[in-house]
């Protein structure tokens, strides 16, 4: 029984962390699958969203949930401007150029945030209702973790409906599978991509705001967690919503378990596992084979 509670708390803790990874990474996964564009600056949008949430709560005194909505909208708007002005010029460029451009963008974001807000961590104050412990019958667990799991599952279901049941979702799926064929059918890929990019950035912003409670929020954020976002996309398979969800949940729980039971290994295991997994299935667990 005690062991059961141990395992349950481990799974819940890991899932909560995984949900944040999923919410941030899903946009990256879809844009990468759609355009093959390597956007290393994706984490910067998550950071931007987090900062907007914290600053909106602090200076306008609005609540956590409205602040998340503001973060989503403003970040999506910023990403549309950047996509039209900068990203769109590099879609046909070599991968190295894309990587250099987006990593440069990360450094600009880091410096801009340091300059405007300051180098220190920004504390996020979540509502009292989400603090403390929730009684789940067999065990008490951190309320916020349960909240994150509920939000993550709701989002993946929403995305699934959007992808599988709407015309727009069908267009995205078609474009991920065969872009040239989709274009020749008369679908405006540029517009499709701008909208998807903005939505993905908005999701990242949501993840940045939701995750700030335990990932923290400081100017180094986009670099600190970049590897984790990329692992989720690589393991899940680019362009796969459910792939990203399972991958994020798996990584969250595995990382939590390894840290809890083998803390001496530090963060090493998760990278070793990723390497082994990608050697076995280079296209990711859920990606289509090349």
């Amino acid at each position, binding site marked *: 029984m005690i062991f059961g509670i*141990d395992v349950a*708390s*481990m799974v819940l*803790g*890991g899932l*909560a*962390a995984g949900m944040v990874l999923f919410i941030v990474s899903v946009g990256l996964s879809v844009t990468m699958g759609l355009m093959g564009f390597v956007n290393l600056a994706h984490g910067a949008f998550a950071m931007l969203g987090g900062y907007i949430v914290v600053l909106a709560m602090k200076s306008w005194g609005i609540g956590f949930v409205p602040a998340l909505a503001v973060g989503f909208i403003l970040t999506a708007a910023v990403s549309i401007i950047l996509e039209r002005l900068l990203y769109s010029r590099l879609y046909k460029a070599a991968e190295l150029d894309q990587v250099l451009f987006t990593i440069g963008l990360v450094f600009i974001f880091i410096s801009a945030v*340091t300059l405007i807000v*300051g*180098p*220190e*961590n920004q*504390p996020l*104050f979540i509502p009292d209702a989400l*603090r*403390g*412990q929730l009684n789940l019958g067999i065990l*008490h667990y*951190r*309320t*916020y*973790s349960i909240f994150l799991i509920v939000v993550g599952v709701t989002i993946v279901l929403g995305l699934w409906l959007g992808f599988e049941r709407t015309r727009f979702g069908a267009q995205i799926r078609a474009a991920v599978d065969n872009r040239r064929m989709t274009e020749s059918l008369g679908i405006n890929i540029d517009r499709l991509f701008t909208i998807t990019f903005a939505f993905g950035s908005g999701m990242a912003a949501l993840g940045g705001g939701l995750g700030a*409670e*335990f*990932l*923290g929020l*400081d100017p*180094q954020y986009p670099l*600190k967690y970049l590897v984790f976002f990329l692992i989720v996309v690589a393991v899940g398979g680019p362009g796969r919503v459910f792939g990203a969800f399972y991958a994020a949940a798996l990584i969250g729980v595995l*990382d*939590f*378990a390894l*840290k*809890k*039971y083998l*803390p*001496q290994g*530090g*963060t090493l295991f998760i990278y070793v596992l990723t390497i082994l997994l990608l050697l076995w299935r280079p296209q990711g667990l859920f990606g289509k084979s090349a």
Partner: protein
Amino acid sequence: MIKRILAASAAVAMSACFAQAQEVKIGLVAPFTGIGAEFGQQADRGIEQYLKLNADKIKPYTIKLIKRDDKNPSGADSKVAVQELLTQENVEALIGWIYSPNAFASAPVVTAGKKLAIITNAGTAHITLTSPYWVRTSFSMWHSGFPLGEAAAKILKAKTAVVGYSDFPPGKDELAAFKRSFEANGGKVIDEIPMGGPAQVPDFTPFFQRAKDAKPDVFFVFIPAGDHSAAVVKTYGALGMKEAGIKLIGPGDITQDTKLQAMGDAAIGLITMHHYNADLDNPENKRLVAAWHKDYGANSTPDFMAVGAYDGMAAIVHAIQATKGKLDGDAALASLKGWKDVSPRGPIMIDPETRDIVMNEYLSEVVKGADGKLHQKLLATIPNVKDPCKELKVGPCAGSN
């Protein structure tokens, strides 16, 4: 006429020469960009405040501070910065070093440069043994860890402890210090949890969950100063460890003044051992805190990093006066052995044998004040603590230079 001009210009030249002799160049090495930028700012402001509040002690000399950014705890950038300060800027003394790895990396250059070098933060115990020119005005990890082990057993009446620490040299130092004195006083450390490296704030949930499952009386946490502390206190609160009867204790890094208010009520009841907090009640500290609020805003506060640098500059000023402005490395060093001063942290002295600081340690508890802000209430003072690591000759502290 020409004679007069000549004489006048000679006088000007001489006075310029005289003025130059009065100016002493000091090199400051600290992170001013990147993740440690706020620490560099604390050190810089600590020095600025010392020079402002003690202008009369510096006369007739003037101090020119040359700042170099050592960016990160990698060591490499710090070493280059020190080399540049010594060979290109020709500084007379060095001050700074926030991170231990940077002090270790700089030690050979400091030794070769033969100039006084004051460590204002880096806390790994045996750093001072790596060069004969080091003088430390900050602390050794053992300064807090060792007395806290005894206090946990005797004052807090703890029988069991779990230690969680950031996995790098100061973390291991702190663990060793706490464990040694806690177990010598009848306690037992039942688990030791390395919690990731110092450069990034990890999600502490898995580590704290492990500590909670072990059900100790106290959970001793060492993390580097800075952003880790808010996450520690948050996770401690969110996992219900307080309700489970587990006390969170540690060195003052978990209640760093600059981070305290942002922690909220979850921080109430935290118990720390440290040599400084902004609530210390003494005239020197009151003067510093008041000046600090005036210059940098009411929400800004000095912390132990600022005070390390404040006292570091006090040491340099003492050495300048003692060597009549020459700051010859060996003479400057000799003048600081046994030097005493009254610091915002209380009375301090440089131990003549180890060149490390001797100071009071304060056991404090976080409480909510009448002003609605969090404060640190003094529970006990442990006077004149000498670095126990070198006193007891533990591990690398047994060496000499």
